[in-house]
């Protein structure tokens, strides 16, 4: 459990010592990759048996199913990203800066998952925030990167402040019950005896704190800025895992530490609904590839929050089985999203690596030269849009099924309907992403990416595939999470509900569906491998126009749809697609506030005109007021 930490710290120190940037690069990423492998081992160990470790200074660590599942995901994503980075980071300089922040980033994420003490949790949370901030502003010579970094920094710190406040409120209570301690177990004990108003305040603060990090609408606005600003391997980690630590934290806090509360679940559902809706329709509009993917992350966090929120509200109202299935669905989607979103970000990174461009309007036809990258990006896109036999489908389907059948909470079936619709939008914008970059007439001549980068992506693609066909690989450990909550996993498994995807009672349909899925995937593989072009090739038919004049730009893909959904893009008078105009809630939430503060600032500084007489007069006015108050009192 400690070995990866030591290795990562060692990596950070080594990266400071080594001056040669090439060696440094290989070393950092190599060490990170190895420690990620170790993290996978730790996670698998944790799935098989519980591990608890107590270190001095209250540094308690533990691995239960929840932590283990997340550890494994971190390991997989981290390993493939590190592999990828060995080549990718060659185009960047400043290796020592990178090395320290990258290793500490992974370290912090790992430790967040395994610590069992609120103080250390916050400590590592902060470490994660800071190191990821450093990575986001890696290319700090660019104005927009600094802006994005600033926004990220401030928003996450407001979140951290909320978390700390909540933890302190809980900690105060531990004094009253006589165990002044910050470990999760005693906080949990304290929360049972808390006055309900304070407890509700805690819930609210924690929710805000964690939702900022997940990038849930309306607290998301840092996310689409920070992800494109960071180097792509970092975006892959940010989107692939960092925002999931908040999901982990939500599950840990709201399911395990604090008593489950119905309205928290409803709030989570609501924010999930908003995130998936706005994330989806904003992604539709993007022309910047990584920005599109970032909004897609917002959307997928919406699915995850919907699942978890449904789980929370169902469990809190006593629907144990449905609730635990919803929770499992949420976690499963977390796992799946980690895989395909990291894959997509890495593919966007490969394009940047070769062309240096993110604008999908000017990119095109790269599939001709970067065949493997194109195929891998395709797998990611299809998986994210939920095509069966790839992993995105399974979890989405589970989420729909469980929400659509939660008739006791009427909002949930509505959510399911919306979610299905948003899923179609996902398909739409990912089609835009993939086809505008990789298909069409090539915009420039490039080479295929280095093998290591492809390998990094391929690992994730393989997992997308495996988890799509045999989701029980992930679902079995995930169901154990509910077991930790005190719900018998066997009951859940017995529910035919999850039938096809769990090793439940073997029914004909179970077998046949698995058979069908296996058949489909086999079919896909076979066609992919053996289907050869007929040998006769023809120029695409351009309807008689000059081919060079034709290009279908990314910005015009869904113009009509966007026009139709104009009200959803909050008060944008006319959608201008040629520009990088942002349908951003910032404009309505943050900017007016900033403007207002600027105005107030101007107003209150108006007396400071430089005249010493004026200053004296103001001072004495204040003094006279005070004297007046004294006289009035007496």
């Amino acid at each position, binding site marked *: 459990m400690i070995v990866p930490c030591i290795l990562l710290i060692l990596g950070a120190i080594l990266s400071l010592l080594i001056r040669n940037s090439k060696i440094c690069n290989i070393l950092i990423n190599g060490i990170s990759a190895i420690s990620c492998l170790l993290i996978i081992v730790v996670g698998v160990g944790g799935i098989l048996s519980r591990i608890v470790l107590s270190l001095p200074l209250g540094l308690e660590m533990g691995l239960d199913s929840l932590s283990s599942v997340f550890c494994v995901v971190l390991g997989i994503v981290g390993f493939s990203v590190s592999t990828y980075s060995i080549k990718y980071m060659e185009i960047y300089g400043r290796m020592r800066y990178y090395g320290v922040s990258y290793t500490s980033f992974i370290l912090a994420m790992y430790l967040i998952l395994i610590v069992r003490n609120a103080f250390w949790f916050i400590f590592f949370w902060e470490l994660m925030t800071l190191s990821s901030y450093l990575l986001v502003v890696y290319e700090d010579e660019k104005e927009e990167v600094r802006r994005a970094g600033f926004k990220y920094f401030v928003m996450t710190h407001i979140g951290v402040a909320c978390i700390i406040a909540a933890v302190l409120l809980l900690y105060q209570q531990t004094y009253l019950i006589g165990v002044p301690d910050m470990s999760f177990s005693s906080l949990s004990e304290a929360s049972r005896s808390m006055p309900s108003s304070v407890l509700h305040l805690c819930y609210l603060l924690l929710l805000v704190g964690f939702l900022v990090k997940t990038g849930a609408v309306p607290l998301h606005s840092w996310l689409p800025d920070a992800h494109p600003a960071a180097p792509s391997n970092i975006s892959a980690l940010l989107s692939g895992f960092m925002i999931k630590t908040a999901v982990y934290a939500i599950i840990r806090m709201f399911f395990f530490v604090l008593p489950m509360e119905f309205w928290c679940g409803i709030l989570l559902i609501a924010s999930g609904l908003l995130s998936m809706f706005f994330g989806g329709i904003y992604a539709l509009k993007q022309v910047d590839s990584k920005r599109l993917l970032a909004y897609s992350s917002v959307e997928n966090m919406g699915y995850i929050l919907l699942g978890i929120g449904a789980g929370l509200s169902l469990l809190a109202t006593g629907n144990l089985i449905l609730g635990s299935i919803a929770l499992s669905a949420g976690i499963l989607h977390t796992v799946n999203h980690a895989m395909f979103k990291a894959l997509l970000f890495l593919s966007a990174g490969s394009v940047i690596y070769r062309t240096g461009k993110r604008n999908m309007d000017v990119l095109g036809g790269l599939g001709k030269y970067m065949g493997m990258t194109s195929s891998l990006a395709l797998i990611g896109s299809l998986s994210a849009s939920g095509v069966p036999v790839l992993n995105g489908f399974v979890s989405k*389907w589970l989420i729909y099924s469980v929400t659509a059948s939660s008739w006791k909470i009427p909002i949930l079936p509505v959510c399911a*309907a919306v979610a299905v619709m948003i899923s179609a939008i996902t398909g739409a914008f990912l089609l835009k992403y993939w086809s505008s970059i990789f298909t069409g007439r090539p915009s420039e001549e490039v080479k295929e990416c280095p093998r290591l980068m492809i390998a990094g992506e391929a690992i994730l693609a393989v997992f997308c595939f495996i988890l799509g066909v045999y989701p029980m690989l992930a679902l079995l450990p995930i169901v154990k999470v509910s077991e930790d909550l005190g719900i018998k996993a066997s009951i859940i498994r017995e529910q035919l509900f999850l039938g096809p995807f769990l090793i439940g009672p073997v029914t004909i349909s179970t077998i046949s569906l698995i058979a069908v899925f296996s058949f489909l995937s086999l079919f896909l593989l076979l066609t992919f491998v053996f289907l050869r072009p007929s040998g006769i090739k023809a120029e695409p038919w351009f309807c008689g126009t000059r081919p060079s004049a034709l290009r279908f730009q990314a910005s015009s893909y869904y113009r009509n749809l966007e026009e139709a959904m104009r009200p959803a893009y909050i008060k944008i008078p006319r959608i201008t697609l040629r520009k990088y105009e942002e349908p951003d809630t910032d404009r309505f939430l943050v900017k007016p506030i900033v403007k207002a503060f600027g105005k107030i600032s101007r107003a209150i500084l108006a007396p400071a005109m430089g005249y010493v007489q004026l200053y004296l007069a103001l001072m004495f006015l204040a003094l006279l007021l005070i004297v007046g108050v004294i006289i009035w009192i007496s």
Partner: protein
Amino acid sequence: MDLIGGLINLFLVMLIAPVLDGFARKVRARIHCRIGPPILQTWYDIIKLFKKKDIDAEVSSRLYLISPYLSLAFSLVAALIIPIGCKKPPLGFTGDVLLLVYLLASSSLLVAFGSTASGNPFSGIGASRMLSLTVLGEGMLAGSIVTFSVIAGSLRIGSITELLSTSPRLAAAVALIPLAVFVYLESERVPFDIHEAEPEIVGILVEFSGRKLGLIKYSMMIRSTVLATLLIDLAVPWWLADSYMIPFYIISIILWLLLLLLLTLIFTIVDSSLARYRISMAIEGLVPFLCISFLSIVLAFLGV
């Protein structure tokens, strides 16, 4: 019995789908005061296309080659989930109806991806239009399906049809409207045939030829047949047999055929009497139905 039922389902759908198309063509010709092609003409077309030499687009991805096959495969799996003749579908489990939605959507999504993979910008335009419509269509479909599941208290098509056949509800009737519109939309008829219209030069099929074209057309027909069956199942669930008892089963299959033909007739009449929309008009035209579908969920919860 499930296995045999599944095979029967597949066989029926594969057989009937082109026939329905041929029937539609015949009806349309009659409305236009033409004699029209024979009913089996579509079958002949497909067979001819399969025999033809395949020409590939020059700059294309591998997906371009395989997407027709995959699309067909997904449509066929969808055919296993739909009850034909018997209330219990061959592949039934909780949530199967959502799988159906996904399979059909994926089938068309794959065609869209495949067509853009051909590298022709016109296919890109077609694909984007198709997906624009699909977004709204899926919303409508999802809304009505959730309504049915709320009414029936189950997410299995089998249970839903069973319940609807015993106790019809107003909400179900309301939910049928968007569902019908969706089925109409997916069968690529005027005014929603924007992405692949006969008089149109742009479209998703522009770069497909020969066997690939045949496969895609076939898969589209199967898809619309499956959807039409879903509509029939949910609208008039009484014709479905309770089990695979031979006499009832066969009777209900014949009924199914008749109902399909009736539906096709209605659709074709509507089709012939309408003019084509521009894409933006089509999208805006769908929005009210989306609202209706979400309204129907509310109605279902109100117990209407």
